[in-house]
């Protein structure tokens, strides 16, 4: 047995926040109890002193691009799963926009298998909604589900045809598969490189209005309501989307949603190099501030944070999107979208807590059981008999974000040079120690 002795256990699934001792046997949690490890236990078991540390369920990240197969120079399943473990993330959902696209059981099994072989975070594949994610014909969803896919999505390629989306939702509903959407009306966002607004105007960059996201969220909520399918809205960035999801949830539509650390931390000012509350000043036209959906205005950011606090947004997900320096060191308009996030997600959520914007228990819930429930996964909880995915955290440790030291193969973080607090010191997946950080 492994005994995590007398740490501050924060386990929102079981409404625990207090000094507890966590008992792990094999791959499972045995118990979480108030009594510290006994002298007798210390003789027989591996007892880890967690006094002064926080002990949390391993984090669940619903939205991760691992780039394998096809773009292994940017990331591999192993390097991404390793980076996840370092960030305290014990389960990642691997997006299907690989080369080839994960629209068949063969690719899904490959991804899941590589994840098992790597032996870091759990890697669960997401399948495509449409064949090749080209938005026309449905992918073999039953086969994808059988091969281990936990949801379907054409992430990054908005499904513009409402008729296809309707059928996809119906078909996925029969299979009890959530449908994750990257909500963007391409005819509205048309060529936008950042959020439409004063900052884009000043920089002379083409803007994509928030309405491009909101309009598509509205459409998909309507179709989810009509079909009874489970819609999961990826990377919510706009206040209008929050409002639409709030209303839909009140009506009883089956919808869940996620938000990213960059959208709850940064605004479009970051593209102009204006320092955020926590970070140093950057360079104008910083391509590491380019992603889709783009960073929005401060009022959008506040709406997203508010929705994380009250549960309208269920999960924090990174949208970890590795790109190489050759891809990113180009003219802003030509740079690909996306930033990495696995190794900074938890610290940024804690920064939100310290800023008084999000209660601690809510933050941990959005990182653990919140996302797990979105896709009915058995993780993100320290309940007896649950899989022993657990992290130990030095919540006060300050560290400077240096992408050169990331486990990810890519360096495209908008948080380089930031000083953050909270460092994962141990990560257990299925009772096995997969990441350990020495004292500073």
């Amino acid at each position, binding site marked *: 047995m492994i005994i995590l002795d007398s740490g501050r256990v924060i386990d929102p699934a079981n409404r625990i926040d207090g000094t507890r001792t966590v008992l792990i046997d094999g791959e499972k949690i045995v118990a979480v109890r108030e009594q510290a490890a006994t002298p007798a236990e210390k003789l027989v078991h591996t007892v880890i002193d967690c006094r002064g540390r926080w002990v949390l369920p391993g984090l669940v990240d619903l939205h991760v691009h691992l780039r394998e197969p096809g773009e292994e120079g940017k990331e591999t399943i192993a390097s991404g799963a390793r980076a996840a473990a370092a960030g305290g993330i014990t389960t990642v959902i691997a997006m299907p926009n690989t080369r080839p696209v994960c629209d068949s059981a063969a690719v899904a099994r490959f991804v899941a298998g590589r994840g098992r072989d790597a032996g870091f975070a759990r890697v669960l594949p997401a399948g495509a909604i449409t064949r090749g994610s080209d938005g026309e014909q449905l992918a073999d969803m039953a086969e994808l589900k059988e091969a281990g896919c936990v949801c379907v999505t054409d992430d990054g390629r908005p499904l513009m045809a409402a008729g296809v989306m309707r059928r996809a939702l119906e078909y996925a509903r029969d299979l009890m598969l959530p449908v994750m959407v990257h909500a963007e009306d391409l005819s509205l966002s048309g060529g936008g490189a950042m959020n439409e607004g004063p900052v884009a105007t000043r920089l002379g960059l083409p803007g994509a*209005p928030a309405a491009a996201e909101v309009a598509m969220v509205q459409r998909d909520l309507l179709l989810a309501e009509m079909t009874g399918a489970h819609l999961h809205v990826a990377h919510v960035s706009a206040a209008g989307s929050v409002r639409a999801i709030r209303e839909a949830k009140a009506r009883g539509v089956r919808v869940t949603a996620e938000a990213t650390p960059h959208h709850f931390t940064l605004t479009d000012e970051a593209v102009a190099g204006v320092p955020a509350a926590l970070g140093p000043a950057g360079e104008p*036209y910083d391509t590491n501030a380019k992603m889709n959906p783009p960073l929005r205005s401060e009022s959008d950011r506040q709406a997203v944070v508010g929705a994380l606090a009250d549960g309208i947004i269920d999960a924090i997900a990174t949208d970890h999107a590795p790109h190489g320096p050759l891809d990113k060191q180009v003219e802003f308009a030509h740079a690909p979208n996306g930033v990495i996030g696995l190794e900074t997600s938890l610290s940024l959520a804690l920064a939100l807590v310290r800023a008084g914007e999000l209660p601690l228990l809510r933050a941990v819930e959005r990182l653990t059981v919140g996302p797990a429930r979105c896709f009915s996964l058995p993780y993100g909880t320290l309940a007896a008999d649950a899989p022993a995915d657990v992290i130990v955290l030095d919540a006060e440790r300050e560290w400077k974000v240096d992408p050169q030291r990331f486990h990810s193969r890519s360096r495209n973080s908008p948080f380089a040079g930031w000083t953050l607090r909270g460092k994962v010191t141990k990560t257990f997946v299925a009772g096995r120690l997969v990441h350990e950080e020495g004292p500073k």
Partner: protein
Amino acid sequence: MEFPRHLLELETLTRAQIEALLTLASRFKHERARARGGDAARDRRSLLPGRTVVTLFFESSTRTRSSFEVAARALGADVLSFQKEASSVTKGESLEDTVRNLDAIGADALVVRHPAAGAPRLVARAVRASVINAGDGAHEHPTQGLLDALSLRERWGTLEGKTVAIVGDIAHSRVARSNIHCLSKLGARVRVGGPSTLIPAGVEKLGCTVAASLAEALTGADAVMALRIQNERIADARLPGARDYARTWGINARSLAMLPREALVLHPGPVNRGVEMSSDVMEGPRSLVMDQVDSGVAVRMATLALCLRAEVPA
């Protein structure tokens, strides 16, 4: 007063830096006028001898490029010109690699025009040479803003308290942005006007007001600057057509009547006659269009001299 080594934008220049540049440009402009008139004028070819100015244009342009080249030669610099198709990284050489090569050749100044906003800044990070932005996407066209200010300053003595209206495609215009920054720093009030489809979100945050009609833009203005309307604006559904635009926002004899009698008319060129400006206005007595071209050479001489730290004798 320190002048920056790169001229990437007017937004970050101080009023003192702009004034210093305009004063020098004004001197060059008068010297050139005297020389054209056959009078003995100071030869400025000793200012940048043996220095190399490279013009690197990723968009076609005749007037800006030739203006820079004439300016560089007038200062005694050697000139190399490159015209390239802008390429994304997937095909061909990256921008950084291209400019590093030119840097290695020995360029002292790189004059860059590029369709992507922010590209000159990327160039400045990659090279040792001074970088001068000759227009980047819809961001800025600093020397255009400066030459407009020079032409106006010479007419008025000062821009303090004057009102300038900029009319047309503000959304896609780097000229508009550089002018808003430059004119407002020099104490003028700037109004922008055009169909809502061509007014970018939050433009008033740059320090201008937005006029809802041509009459509102022109009433009481001391000068109006018309911007070029491009055919793409019809293709991307921002405008129904040239005629409809000319009817509501064109600067012609009829709209000129809304302006005070002594008000001036500018256009950065090239003009679509009969669309954003009628021929009679362009060639009329209030037009500064040809003077702007003259100011352009002088402003570019001053820019090169200051960025390359030439010692200018009085």
